[in-house]
């Protein structure tokens, strides 16, 4: 589904990603872990097409399409979704209104008819139930005045409504207490489908106790230092990132 080859990218003339290779297949959950400043968020922003980031070299193919050629909205249209680490507040626009527009943009791409507000509310109700959330946030302006946990949960609501093929979740756990973290994890597990894939970016192993990844990659200094199964995350938890900084410790 996603194939990244030799990706070098940066911002403000500074190279941050220094050759990433990564392949994700349909049905898989991958996790990228790494210390602060290793380039985790840069990778998510580059995948989503943030205009401030510059791709220096390399290729990213998404279901065979050159992703890097596409505008951010066209990437979304193809089925890519980014859950932001820091969701933006959109004043004056309700969650429901925004989500309906986003969904209809997606449906138009898929050649489906747009949903009218009534059908949309039915769908919304169903999705809220699926992620075990109430409707109190539906008619509030997008993310405005939301707590950290509510903002993260709102990204997951978008994920549920938009049903992307590939979801990139950028630190969906940062700033969350254990209860909020379980809620986010449950929702992600709930939304798992055989024809979709998920890339979770996280600093801590804790989230991966609740969402078990097929593959774990450790990003250090802009490169994937090592990859492994879900047990790698646990190993990192006990030994810390020194594990990958000192290759001799790996697999010992």
């Amino acid at each position, binding site marked *: 589904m996603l194939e990244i080859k030799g990706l070098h990218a940066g911002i403000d003339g500074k190279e941050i990603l220094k050759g990433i290779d990564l392949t994700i297949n349909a049905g898989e959950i991958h996790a990228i872990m790494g210390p602060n400043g290793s380039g985790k968020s840069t990778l998510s922003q580059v995948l989503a097409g943030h205009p401030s980031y510059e791709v220096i070299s390399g290729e990213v193919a998404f279901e065979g399409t050159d992703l890097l050629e596409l505008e951010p909205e066209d990437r*979304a249209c193809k089925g890519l979704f980014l859950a932001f680490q820091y969701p933006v507040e959109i004043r004056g*626009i309700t969650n429901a209104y925004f989500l309906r527009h986003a969904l209809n*943009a997606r449906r138009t791409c898929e050649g489906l008819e747009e949903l009218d507000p009534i059908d949309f509310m039915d769908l919304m109700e169903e999705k809220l139930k699926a992620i075990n959330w109430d409707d109190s946030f539906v008619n509030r302006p997008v993310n405005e005045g939301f707590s950290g946990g509510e903002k993260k949960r709102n990204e997951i609501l978008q994920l549920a409504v938009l049903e992307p093929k590939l979801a990139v979740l950028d630190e969906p756990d940062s700033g969350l207490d254990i209860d909020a973290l379980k809620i986010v994890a449950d929702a992600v597990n709930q939304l798992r489908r055989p024809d979709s894939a998920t890339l979770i970016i996280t600093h801590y192993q804790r989230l991966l106790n609740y969402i078990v990844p097929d593959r774990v990659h450790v990003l250090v200094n802009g490169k994937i230092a090592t990859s492994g199964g879900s047990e790698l995350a646990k190993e990192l938890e006990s030994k810390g990132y020194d594990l990958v900084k000192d290759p001799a410790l790996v697999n010992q």
Partner: protein
Amino acid sequence: MSDSTASGEGAVNRYETEFVDFAKKMDPNDPEWLSEIRSEAIAEFAKTGFPTVRDEKWRFTNFSRMEQAAFRLRNGRAVAEPRDVATSSGFNLWGNTRLVFVDGKYAPELSSTGSLPSGVYLGVLGEAVRDAPPQLQEFLGQISPLKESPFTALNAAFMSLGAVLVVQPHAVVQEPIHLVFLSGEASANTVSHVRNLIAVGEGAQLTTLESYVGVGAESCWTNSVTELSLGDSAVLKSYRTQLEGSGAFHTSCTNCHQGRDSNYSLTTMDFGGQLSRHDIGVRLAGSGAHCDVFGLVHLRDKQHADNHTWIDHAEPHCTSNELFNGVFEGESHGVFTGRIMVREGAQRTDALQSSRNLLLSETARADAQPQLEIFADDVRCTHGATVGPIDPEALFYLRSKGLSEDEARSLLTFGFAAEILNSVEPDGWREELELLLRSRLQGN
């Protein structure tokens, strides 16, 4: 420089001369107190003349074009058919209870006052002077001080047109009352001094709409003053819309005097005119009073709008919440000044103020300046002002979720306006304003 002084004096002389004629034509039965206000007012205006940018309070707005234009007094001149003016304005004379004025004259054929509940007096100023509800003398000219603005002084000198609305204590008026001031082609090169007085008695509740609407591109001037008095525990919700024609000048003063535990909410919108200035003064004169002042400005081309607000916390335990959003296109220029005064002894004041200005072009400009004067120590005053283009992070956020760049921009711009629009409570009126705004933001 000497030229502008000469023309300044010329303008003052012209209005003084016009006042002599005006005073002669006044109803001889007008009460003496009213004549006294008028004479005092023209003398005050003669002292100051038009404001200049050298005055701190007026420094962002240049009135010289207005001063040089020789506007004649609009009252009593032949007018076009009011229905035609209303039709060509395309403006919805919304509401079942309304007073409509066209080209400086009351238009009974467009007005409707049939469904008023008991305990409410609604009349035009001329009638009210004859009917003389006691609140008229008590409040008229007392809430908007002459010295606060030369425009208020000029208005007081020539006041003869407008609405008087008095709600008796504890009366609850469910239906909004709409005051509409339309200017058609017949208003070209004239000035209309509109004076409204709204007195809401103790424990009474009222909702008003105040709309200033122009047709066409003629140069004309509406100079309005609205005086509001809220008794103890009174509630007033007020929605003002300024949609003057593209060549129009508009100056307004809205002054509200609030009693104990009263609640005043104003949502004001400026969309029209080539130049507009609105002075809003709210005096929280009884403890526990609360006011909301919300403003929305959308300008384009070379439009200029200046909102100057003054929230006066005179007593303890009062709260105020002020939020002004502006959207500026083309070469337009928006000004917001938010003065908050917390007087000595006004403890436990809680005042919030925010001004957000969105610049949609490189040539648009916005100036926002908070002014806090605090003379009490146990208070909370929060203020903030922003001026800038659409937030690129917000734009990317929406695009990454699938919205096109155009769609994302228009959503963010509309959201900016919707934040204020959402404070409009009467559903039908909010929907009307939303349609208007959407159409404007699409360039219509």
